[in-house]
């Protein structure tokens, strides 16, 4: 089969590649040429063959499969689906007797990628325009967004904030481990390397080889409140947690409202929409009541020994408003505090200057945290970065020094 025989196929492949690119896959012109060649070689015997041929060329990460799969089916299979996708973007009129099917988030992104200029689509649904906005993002606009409370953000600003969060990195301070690595300026002598180096010169000179300790960030555990009082923030925090989970290893994430759910595995998904979709499917207590005390108890008995090993750091995100009795909360918090390296409490309510920990729950938590910070806008998340990368003494070590000073 030569190029001439395939008729409009190369054009279609090119258009398909453009759709993928607009949907966020890194597809370059080189890949388009490769795809055309691959299809030439493989032939277009069946739809499945075409699917896997294109898949082999365009997809190079596991998390791109979802997008590719949906794009393929919409683009190559059924023009009707295409129509339906288009209708989803058009303003709906009262006469319509059929509600559009609940489309998955990734689907929407694709639809946006295919029909970016469709009238009726809101600004929020146009990634291309967003990119434009990003490029032209003036300094002042960014500044304003930084300090805007998540609660008062418009849909569009929320989208931008999500992007900013995804780009954030959390440099947690590294702690020394008991492992060593070769280091010319290290403090310890690496005997094995020394002897080897010495033999190289016949044993007459012994050049010292040195090594130093390997540093590594401690494990991180995030506990996030998703109850009703936090609902304006919890979406944003989930994006934050997703960014953190994907940025490093040894991160465990939990959400709690009336009960505790471990969402670490879902958040490991690279694609943020798929990850958050999985989370919302698995969590049943969105925006309900809060039972902090109960959830902390669950965490302490069921999870703490499994995830708090090796000096973990805990980030607790909650407003401290507990629907249920809080008499045991102090006790549970104390236990949690004692079994981790450092505990950080992030409270969105702290944005009010005159905030005082008056709620019974908050009063119980406060004595047992190492640091108490606000988290209500982008700036406070960025500040958090600074706090995590600062060097701080371990609680036990601090006590030990005091003892030494006394003696």
């Amino acid at each position, binding site marked *: 089969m030569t190029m001439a025989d395939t008729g409009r196929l190369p054009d279609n492949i090119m258009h398909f590649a453009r759709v993928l690119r607009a949907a966020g896959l890194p597809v370059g012109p080189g890949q388009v040429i490769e795809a055309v060649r691959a299809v030439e070689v493989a032939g277009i015997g069946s739809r499945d063959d075409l699917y896997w041929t294109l898949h082999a060329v365009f997809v190079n990460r596991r998390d791109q499969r979802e997008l590719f799969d949906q794009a393929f089916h919409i683009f190559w299979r059924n023009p009707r689906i295409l129509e339906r996708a288009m209708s989803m973007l058009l303003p709906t009129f009262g006469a319509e007797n059929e509600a559009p099917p609940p489309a998955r988030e990734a689907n929407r992104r694709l639809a946006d990628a295919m029909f970016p200029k469709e009238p009726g689509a809101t600004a929020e649904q146009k990634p291309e325009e967003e990119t434009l906005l990003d490029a032209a993002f003036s300094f002042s606009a960014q500044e304003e967004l930084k300090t805007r409370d998540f609660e008062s953000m418009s849909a569009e600003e929320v989208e931008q904030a999500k992007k900013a969060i995804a780009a954030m990195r959390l440099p947690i301070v590294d702690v020394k481990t008991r*492992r060593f690595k070769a280091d010319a300026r290290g403090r310890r002598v690496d005997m094995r390397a020394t*002897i080897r180096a010495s*033999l190289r010169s*016949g*044993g007459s000179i012994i050049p010292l080889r040195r090594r130093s300790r390997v540093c590594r960030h401690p494990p991180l555990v995030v506990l996030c409140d998703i109850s009703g009082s936090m609902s304006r923030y919890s979406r944003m925090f989930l994006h934050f947690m997703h960014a953190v989970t994907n940025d490093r290893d040894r991160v465990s994430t939990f959400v709690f409202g009336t009960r505790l759910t471990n969402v670490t595995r879902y958040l490991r998904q690279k694609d943020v929409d798929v990850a958050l979709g999985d989370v919302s499917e698995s969590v049943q207590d969105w925006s309900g009541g809060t039972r902090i005390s109960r959830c902390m108890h669950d965490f302490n*008995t069921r999870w703490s020994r*499994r995830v708090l*090993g090796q000096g973990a750091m805990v980030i607790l995100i909650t407003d401290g408003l507990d629907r249920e009795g809080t008499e045991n909360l102090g006790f549970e918090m104390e236990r949690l505090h004692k079994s981790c390296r450092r505990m950080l409490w992030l409270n969105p309510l702290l944005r009010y200057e005159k905030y005082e920990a008056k709620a019974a729950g908050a009063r119980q938590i406060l004595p047992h945290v190492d640091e108490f910070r606000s988290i209500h806008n982008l700036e406070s998340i960025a500040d958090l970065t600074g706090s995590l990368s600062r060097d701080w003494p371990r609680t036990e070590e601090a006590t030990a020094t005091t003892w030494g000073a006394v003696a």
Partner: protein
Amino acid sequence: MRDLPASIDATLSLLQDGNYVSDRALATTLFLSLKLGRPLFLEGDAGVGKTEIANVLSQTLGRRLVRLQCYEGLDVASAVYEWNYPAQMIEIRLAEAEGVHDRKQLGTDIFSERFLIKRPLLQALEPDASGPPVLLIDELDRTDEPFEAYLLELLADFQVTIPEFETVKAKEPPIVIITSNRTREIHDALKRRCYYHWIGYPDAERELAILNLKVPGAAERLSREIVAFVQSLREQDLFKLPGIAETIDWASALVQLDKLALDPETVNDTLGVLLKYQDDIAKIQGSEAAKLLDQVNSELATAR
């Protein structure tokens, strides 16, 4: 020396001979792991008898027990092998004094078995007259991921490459038992290469059998009461539930105190043997213990 068991029943009786009361599930997993030469991965709370299995296997099969206790920062030098540096230094000086200038010869002399200090993992690969040894890798969760990754390689081929020396390969793979207290999750890649078994708390019947074996001095009534009390304690909302090791400790302690039956005062005084957290002790001590004891006694009375 004894041959490897040929059936699940044989495995059960093998454990029984080593004074280990096992359920059939554990015996099945153990049998498979012995038969097919795969490592056995045992997980469970502290004090349920994970480590004991390796001891029992080594005793009953007459094999050498090689134990590697894991800890954070465990590295090749303390787990696999290390060179004897001071001896090597002296050897270099001696060679110098004797006027040996053949560098290659010196290299092979220095890095020979004479100067190799073998650590547990390497020891386990060595041939043994009584058959391949039992390798116990204890509390793997205490070490870090890099060591786990290293272990993957070792468990796949049972060979260790020492760059200066040679590749050491086991003629017959050792019997490998890995235990974990689950202070962190072990990576799936390692679990996949092992047979996994979760050792839970035993039921009353099995716990009584264990107690009769381990603390034969305890009076029949005392043993029954101890088991019933511990079993009901495990239904309470405690931070750390007492394991079998604690039950045995408690029984031995009560025997030492010449007790023939439980009474509230003794329970309160010796609760520290069973429960290891102050909050748990405070919760149970006093009225709660008395209540549990009453319940246990009435249950035992109706059972009789």
